[in-house]
C-alpha cells in the first residue's frame, strides 16, 4: 500500500481499527446500492437482439466488480513486461 | 604576283634564311625573320581566301608541268594548315627575341634565326607541295633545322635529346622515303594527284600495302604516335622555350597533315579504311596514347615536360578523330590541328615568360607566381582551360566534335576515354594553378616582376585567339567540315 514502508513496518492498534471502520462503511454502502435493485426494473438494452444479460439481477454490480478485477489483473500482468526503472531512458 | 603565291610561301623564308646567315647580325636576323613570318602569314591567308570556295590552285614550279616538274597544289586543307603554321610563326617570331636572350648564347642568335626560318620553310613546303619526293626533301630540311634548334637549349640534356630525335627522325624519314619509293616503282610518278589516279586499280597489290605501312609508320614517327613517341618529351622539354612552343604548335600538326594527305590524297579513303582498316590501328594506339600520356603528364615535376606529355595526348585525339572515320571525327582532327596550336602555343609561351624571369620552369619555379606575374599566369590559366576543354575556349570546340564523332559511331568506350583524359587534364593543369596561386614563393628564389610587354603581347594575342575562336568557331569549323567532307568523299 505504501512504498515508504520502513516508517510503519510494525502494525499498531489504531491502524487496525481504522481499517475495520473503513470496511464497515464500504459494506454499508454496497448494501445500500443493492437494496433498491429489488424495486427497480432494468431495461435490457439489446432486447431486439435477444441479449438480456444487462437486465439480470445486480448486473451492474457484479459486472463492474469483475471487469475491474480483470483490468487490474491484466495491468498487473502487463506490468511484469512493461515496467522499467524510472531512469530507464535517461541512461 | 598573286599567281606565284604558292611558290613565294616557301621561297621567302628559304631565301631569307640564307640572307640573314650572310648578314650575320642578330638584330637584322630577328627583324628579317619577323618580317618573313608576317609575309608568310599574309600569303597563307590570301591563299586560304582563294581556295575557300573549294577550288584548287595548281602551281607548277618553274613552269615545268607535272609529272616532270614539281607541282604545288593548294586546296582548303593545306591552306588551312599553312595559316596555322605561318600564323603561329608570326606570333612566335616576335616573341623569340627577348626569350632567347635568356636562353641562348648571343653568338648563336644568327644561327638560331637561320634554323628557325629553314624550319618554317620546310614545314610550309611539306604542307604545300604536291610532290611526294619533294615532300621528303622538305621534311628533311625542316627536320635538320629542328635538330639544330633543339640542341641550342640551355639544358645539357638538350644535346642528347636532339641526338635521339635525330636518330628517330632519320628512321622516320627513311621509312617515308621507302614508302615513296615503293609508290614510284609501282606507278612511275611522284606527283600526288597522279599517284592517286594510278593507285586506283591497284588496290590488292602487296607493294601498295607495304608502301602504305611504311608511310604510316614513318609519318607516325614524325608525329609521335604511340609507341613511337619517345623522342618527343625530351626534345620539347629541353629545347629553348620558344622552340618548344613553335614545335609543339606546328611540327606535329604538319605531320598529321601529311598523314591525312597521304591517306586521303594519295591512297584514298576507300583504300585506307576499306582495304587497310587503318582505323583499327589508329584508334587503339590513340586511345592508349591519350590515357597513357595524360597519366604520365600528371606525374611530371617539370612543367615543360608535363606539357610535352600533354601534347602526346593531344596528338592521340587527332589520330582518334581520323580513326573514327566519319565527318565529325575528321572535323575534330582538323579543328584540333588549329586549336591545339593555339592552346599549346599559349601554354609554352607562358612558360617561356616564366623561364625568362625565373630561369626555370619547374613546379618550384612557378610557386607563388600568381601574384608576381599575374598576366603571365592568367595566360597560362586560359591556355590550361582551353586544354581541358572548357567552353568559350577553342579546346571545347575540338572536344565537342570528337565526342560527337564517337557518339555517332556508337563507340561509347572511346567517349569515356576522351572524357577521362579531359579530367586528367584538369588535374595536371590545376596542379600548376594551385602551385602558382596558393603556394608561397620559396625563400631561395628571387622575387620577380611581370614579363615585359614584348613577350606578353604575342602571348595575349594567342590568348585572345583561344577565346575568339572558342566563342565564334563557325569559320574554323566551317572550313574543317568542308575539308572533312571532301576528304572522305564517298566513304560512309
Amino acid at each position, binding site marked *: 500500500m505504501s512504498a515508504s514502508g520502513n516508517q510503519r513496518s510494525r502494525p499498531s492498534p489504531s491502524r487496525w481499527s481504522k481499517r475495520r471502520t473503513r470496511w464497515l462503511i464500504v459494506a454499508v454502502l454496497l448494501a445500500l446500492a443493492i437494496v433498491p435493485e429489488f424495486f427497480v426494473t432494468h431495461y435490457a438494452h439489446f432486447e431486439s437482439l435477444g441479449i438480456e444479460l444487462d437486465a439480470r439481477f445486480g448486473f451492474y454490480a457484479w459486472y463492474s466488480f469483475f471487469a475491474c478485477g480483470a483490468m487490474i489483473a491484466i495491468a498487473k500482468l502487463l506490468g511484469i513486461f512493461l515496467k522499467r526503472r524510472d531512469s530507464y531512458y535517461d541512461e | 604576283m598573286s599567281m606565284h603565291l604558292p611558290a613565294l610561301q616557301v621561297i621567302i623564308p628559304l631565301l631569307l634564311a640564307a640572307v640573314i646567315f650572310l648578314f650575320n647580325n642578330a638584330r637584322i636576323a630577328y627583324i628579317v625573320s619577323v618580317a618573313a613570318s608576317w609575309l608568310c602569314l599574309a600569303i597563307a591567308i590570301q591563299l586560304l581566301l582563294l581556295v575557300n570556295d573549294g577550288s584548287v590552285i595548281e602551281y607548277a614550279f618553274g613552269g615545268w608541268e607535272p609529272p616532270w616538274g614539281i607541282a604545288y597544289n593548294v586546296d582548303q586543307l593545306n591552306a588551312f594548315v599553312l595559316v596555322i603554321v605561318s600564323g603561329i610563326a608570326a606570333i612566335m617570331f616576335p616573341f623569340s627575341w627577348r626569350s632567347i636572350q635568356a636562353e641562348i648564347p648571343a653568338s648563336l642568335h644568327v644561327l638560331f634565326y637561320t634554323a628557325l626560318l629553314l624550319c618554317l620553310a620546310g614545314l610550309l613546303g611539306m604542307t604545300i607541295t604536291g610532290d611526294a619526293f619533294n615532300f621528303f626533301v622538305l621534311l628533311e630540311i625542316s627536320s635538320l633545322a629542328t635538330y639544330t634548334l633543339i640542341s641550342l637549349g640551355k639544358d645539357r640534356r638538350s644535346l642528347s635529346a636532339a641526338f635521339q630525335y635525330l636518330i628517330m627522325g632519320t628512321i622516320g624519314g627513311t621509312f617515308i622515303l621507302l614508302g615513296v619509293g615503293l609508290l614510284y616503282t609501282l606507278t612511275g610518278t611522284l606527283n600526288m594527284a597522279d599517284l592517286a589516279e594510278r593507285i586506283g586499280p591497284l588496290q590488292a597489290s602487296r607493294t601498295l600495302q607495304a608502301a602504305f605501312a611504311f608511310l604510316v609508320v614513318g609519318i607516325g614517327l614524325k608525329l609521335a604516335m604511340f609507341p613511337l613517341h619517345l623522342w618527343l618529351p625530351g626534345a620539347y622539354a629541353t629545347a629553348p622555350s620558344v622552340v618548344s612552343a613553335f614545335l609543339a604548335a606546328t611540327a606535329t600538326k604538319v605531320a598529321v597533315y601529311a598523314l591525312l594527305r597521304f591517306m586521303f590524297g594519295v591512297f584514298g579513303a576507300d583504300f585506307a579504311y576499306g582495304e587497310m582498316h587503318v582505323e583499327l590501328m589508329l584508334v587503339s594506339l590513340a586511345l592508349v596514347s591519350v590515357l597513357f600520356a595524360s597519366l604520365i603528364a600528371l606525374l611530371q615535376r617539370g612543367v615543360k615536360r608535363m606539357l610535352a606529355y600533354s601534347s602526346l595526348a593531344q596528338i592521340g585525339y587527332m589520330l582518334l578523330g581520323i580513326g573514327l572515320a566519319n565527318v565529325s571525327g575528321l572535323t575534330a582532327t582538323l579543328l584540333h590541328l588549329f586549336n591545339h596550336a593555339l592552346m599549346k602555343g599559349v601554354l609554352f609561351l607562358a612558360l617561356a615568360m616564366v623561364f625568362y624571369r625565373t630561369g626555370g620552369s619547374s613546379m618550384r619555379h612557378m610557386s607563388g607566381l600568381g601574384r608576381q606575374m599575374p598576366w603571365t599566369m592568367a595566360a597560362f590559366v586560359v591556355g590550361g582551360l582551353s586544354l581541358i576543354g572548357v567552353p*568559350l575556349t577553342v579546346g571545347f*570546340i575540338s572536344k565537342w566534335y570528337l565526342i560527337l564523332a564517337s557518339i555517332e559511331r556508337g563507340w561509347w568506350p572511346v*567517349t569515356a576515354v576522351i572524357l577521362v583524359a579531359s579530367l586528367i587534364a*584538369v588535374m595536371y593543369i590545376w596542379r600548376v594553378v594551385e602551385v602558382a596561386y596558393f603556394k608561397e614563393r620559396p625563400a631561395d628564389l628571387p622575387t620577380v616582376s611581370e614579363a615585359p610587354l614584348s613577350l606578353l603581347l604575342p602571348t595575349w594575342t594567342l590568348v585572345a585567339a583561344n577565346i575568339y575562336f572558342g566563342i565564334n568557331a563557325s569559320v574554323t569549323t566551317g572550313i574543317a567540315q568542308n575539308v572533312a567532307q571532301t576528304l572522305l568523299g564517298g566513304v560512309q
Partner: protein
Amino acid sequence: MIPLDQLLPLAVFVPLLGAVGIWLFGYAPNIREGATLLTSLVLLLVVGGLLPAVLAGERPTWLLVEMLPGLELKFVLEPLGMLFAGVAALLWPVASLYSIGYMRGNNEQHQTRFYLFFAIAIAASMGIAFAGNLITLFVFYEILTLSTYPLVTHKGNADALKAGRVYMGILLATSVGLLLPAIIWTWQVAGTTDFAAGGIIADKLGGPMLTVLGFLFIYGIGKAALMPMQRWLPAAMVAPTPVSALLHAVAVVKAGVFSVVKVVVYILGVDTLAAAPGIEWLLYIAGFTIVAASTIALRQDNLKRRLAYSTISQLSYVIMAAMILAPISIVGAALHIVAHAFGKITLFFAAGAIYTAAHKTKVSELNGIGHRMPWTMGAFTIGALSMIGVPPAVGFISKWYILMGAFQAEQRVAVAVIILSTLLNAAYFMPIIYAAFFKAPAPGDQQVHGEAPLPIVLALSVTAAATLILFLFPEVPFALAQAIGVQP
C-alpha cells in the same frame, strides 16, 4: 525604354560591367562597394523589367553568336528562367549589403577579388537563367564553376585549397564527364539543343537509352548535388559566409536544380521521360539523398556544415519533384527553387552574423545566443520553419505542390520521403532554435557581443520577411511556375 530583346543580354552584361567597375575601383573600397550595390540594383531593374513581358506570354530571343554551324549562343526569356533570374537578382543586392558588413566586420583579405568574382558568378547565373539552348546553358554553367573557385578558396590556406580541389574536381568531372556527352548526344539525336516545350527528344530516342540519357543529365549537373555527387557542397563551406549564402544557397546550387528542371521539361520532356524504363530510380535516388543528407545534417556540429547538408537534402526535393514527372510537381519544383533560396539564404546570413558578432561556428556553442542576437535568431527561426515547410513560411507552398504532384503521378514513395524528411528537418533545426532562446549560456561564455553589424542584420531581416511575405503573396512566382513548359 529599351526593347525587350536587348534587355535580355543586359542581364548578363550588367554584372560583367559591374565586375569591371569593381576591378577598376579596387583601390577605393567605398567606391568599389558602391559599384557592387549600384550594379546589383541596376540588374534588379533589368530583370524586373523583363517580368511583365514573360507574364504576358512573350518569349523574346537574343542571339549572341553562332558558336558552331547550327549551334548558337542565344538567350530566350522563359518563365522558369525568369523565376531563377528573379531570385538571384533580388537576392544579390541584399547579399551585397550583407557582404559589405561581413567582409569589413571580419577584415577579410582580397576583397576586390571577392567582389569581382562574385559579380562574374552572378553574370554566369543570369546566363544560365536565360540560356536559350543547352549549349548556352553549359557554357555559363562552366563559367559559374570557374568563377566561384576563387571564392571558395578565398582564405587561401590548406583547408581552402583542399576544399577547392573537391569543389572543382566534382563539378568539372560531372559536367565534363557526363553533362557534356549528354548534350552532344542530344544534339546528335535531336539535331538541336534549343529548349522547347514538351522536350525535343520525343520519339527520337526511347527505351533504356533514354534512361541512360536521363541519368547522364541529372548526374552531369553536379551542382544539383544528387548523391553521391554531393561532397563538393559541404567542402565549399570553407568560403566566407556571403559566398555560402548567395552562391551555395542560391546561385550555384539553384543553377544546378534549375538546369535539372529545365532539362526535364524542355529537353527530355515530362511525358517522354515518363515512358523511359527505370527512370523512377532517379526519383528513388533523390528520395534517398533527401533522407540521407538530413540524417547526416543531424550529426553536424558545425553550423554551416549542417546547413550545407540541409541544402543537399533540399536540392533533392527539387530533383525529386522534377522526377515525379507530373505537371503539378514541376510547379512544385520551380516554387521550391524560390522557397528554398529565400529560406536558406536567411539561415546562412544568420550563421555569418553569429560568426561576425560572436565568432562562433558550432551549434553546441549557441546556447542562449538568441537573447544577444534576437533579430538574427528570429530570422533564423523563420528560415528554419520554411525549411520544415510549416506555414506561414513559403516552404509550405512548394511542398504542397510537390505533394500534389506526387498524388497526380501516384508516386507514393515521394509522399513517404517528404513525410520522413520533414521530421528530420525539424530534428536538426529545432534544437538550434531551442538552444538559442531557452538554454542558458555555457559557464565561461562571456557573451559580450551584441547583434552583428547593421548591414548584416538588415539583410537577414529582409530575407526573413520575404520568406513570410512570399507565403502570403505567392502570385508572381506561382504564375511563372504555372507557365513553365506551356507554349504561349
